[in-house]
């Protein structure tokens, strides 16, 4: 079992229902004190039944083996920054909104429908999906299309593992990911900024590339809600918005999917959206980036690398004009 349960077999409270940070940290201290009193088991059980505790429980740990070959040696971004500076429009358009609003997302029960041009369509609940392949930790660079970047230790396995299970047929040229769109859980759904649900997509060979990570955790624990719990995809050589969050459906299709940002602003957000310092966004240069947590206002920017530094994907695009297919 990878998701920890308490001895009675009852799920611990949703790990990422994070209340304001002070409360959260204060409670951690409180828990630590209780732990110190040796009455750990019974006290925790009592606390687990309390609403207040349910709001701020530390996230469930996820055991994973570090995949060094696929990990950068750069300094990782703090958990605090990575969980409080998010673009997740289902929870609001400010980057501080998701951390504040995402606690309403219910990540259990959760099923993912995998269908379309496949021989063996599947509907998997999140626990089965999590156990489908051994979990790896990979420290990836994340480059946002807005010009900032982070370094995040994700936990998951290559999406290819799942794709092989469902056996796509010859018509499967693309993979389409659909994010949950439930107004009751997601206050931003209903805003006119995007069409809902959020849809993203990859070409089949991109989806099969071992770097493409089906992700269930980060920083050694299950994904916080604001980071796309309970399951998302991470495509490290593309701008962050390509990596769909809180996925409810993975569909294999013949034609290029109508993806969310590409639909509302096709001249600004291409279907491919590979990180590319030579192709500017119409509103800003993509030649450099601000690494979050690196030196504040006065820090010089970093040079943005082609494919975000993941040169091993270059062969996927050989012969393609990446200025045209941006």
């Amino acid at each position, binding site marked *: 079992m990878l998701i920890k349960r308490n001895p009675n077999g009852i799920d611990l409270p949703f790990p990422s229902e994070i209340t304001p940070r002070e409360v959260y940290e204060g409670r951690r201290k409180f828990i630590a004190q209780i732990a110190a009193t040796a009455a750990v088991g019974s006290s925790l059980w009592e606390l687990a039944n309390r609403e207040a505790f349910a709001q701020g429980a530390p996230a469930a740990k996820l055991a994973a083996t570090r995949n060094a070959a696929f990990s950068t040696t750069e300094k990782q971004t703090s958990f605090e920054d990575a969980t409080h500076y998010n673009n997740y429009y289902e929870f609001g358009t400010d980057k501080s909104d998701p951390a504040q609003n995402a606690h309403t997302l219910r990540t259990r029960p959760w099923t993912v429908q995998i269908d379309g041009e496949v021989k063996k369509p599947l509907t998997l609940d999140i626990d089965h999906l999590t156990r489908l392949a051994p979990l790896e930790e990979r420290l990836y660079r994340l480059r946002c299309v807005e010009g*900032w970047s982070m370094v995040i230790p994700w936990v998951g396995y290559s999406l290819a593992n799942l794709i092989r299970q469902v056996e796509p047929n010859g018509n499967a040229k693309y993979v389409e990911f659909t994010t949950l769109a439930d107004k009751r859980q997601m206050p931003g759904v209903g805003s006119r900024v995007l069409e809902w649900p959020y849809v993203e997509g990859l070409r089949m060979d991109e989806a099969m590339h071992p770097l493409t990570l089906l992700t269930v955790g980060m920083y050694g624990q299950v994904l916080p809600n604001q980071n796309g719990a309970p399951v998302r995809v991470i495509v490290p050589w593309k701008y962050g918005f390509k990596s769909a969050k809180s996925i409810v459906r993975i569909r294999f299709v013949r034609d290029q999917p109508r993806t969310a940002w590409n639909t509302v*602003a096709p001249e600004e957000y291409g279907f491919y959206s590979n990180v590319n310092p030579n192709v500017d966004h119409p509103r800003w240069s993509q030649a450099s980036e601000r690494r979050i947590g690196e030196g*504040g206002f006065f820090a010089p920017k970093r040079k943005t690398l082609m494919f975000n530094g993941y040169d091993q994907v270059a062969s996927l695009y050989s012969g393609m004009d990446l200025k045209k297919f941006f």
Partner: protein
Amino acid sequence: MTANATQRPAIKKPSLGPTPKQLAALKAVVFVLALLPFARIVWLTVRQVPVDPVEFVTHGTGDWALYLLCATLAITPLRRFTGWNWLIRLRRMLGLYTFFYGLMHFLTFLWADHRFDFGAMWKDVIKRPFITVGFIAFVLLLPLAATSTNAMIKRLGRRWAQLHRLIYLIAPLAILHYWWMKAGKHNFEQPIVWGLVVAMLLGLRVYWSWNRMRSPVPSRSVGS
């Protein structure tokens, strides 16, 4: 609208307004209030509270330049609706604060985005329409700030009022800059709100001048 309102500045009823002492105190209060957002931006940035300080400072200074621009443009309508003619005494300060926040906004762009590389900045200005219009709006603020002293007002006379009507061009440019910037994220809520505010403030002027042209009462124009 009465015939009275077609005159400029029209006064509903005579208002004695604050004493010079009270006015000085009021000015001091407005001075401090208008500086607070900047103090907050600096304070939080120095303490490294914002996750992305460059974005935080850029957006904060830009937002406040727009808010103060609207406040400056609101003085004349407020005077006319309330008869509080003394409000005019606060307008220069609000206008200069608009320039101050605009300058900080520009300097953040020049500093954080371009490390004071004027060549790179210029390329950005001519390449990206939303920066082009923002830059024009800022440049147009320069002569207004430079001619804000009593001596300049005296020296320029009638031409001072004409020059300062540039604000009627600057305000829509600022909205366009904001609109095009937000267009990148398809998020028009704020630009719509502030676009409507500016449209209303400028629309009143259009309405008044239209009324004045039609009115047989000779107007005593003293500028806006």
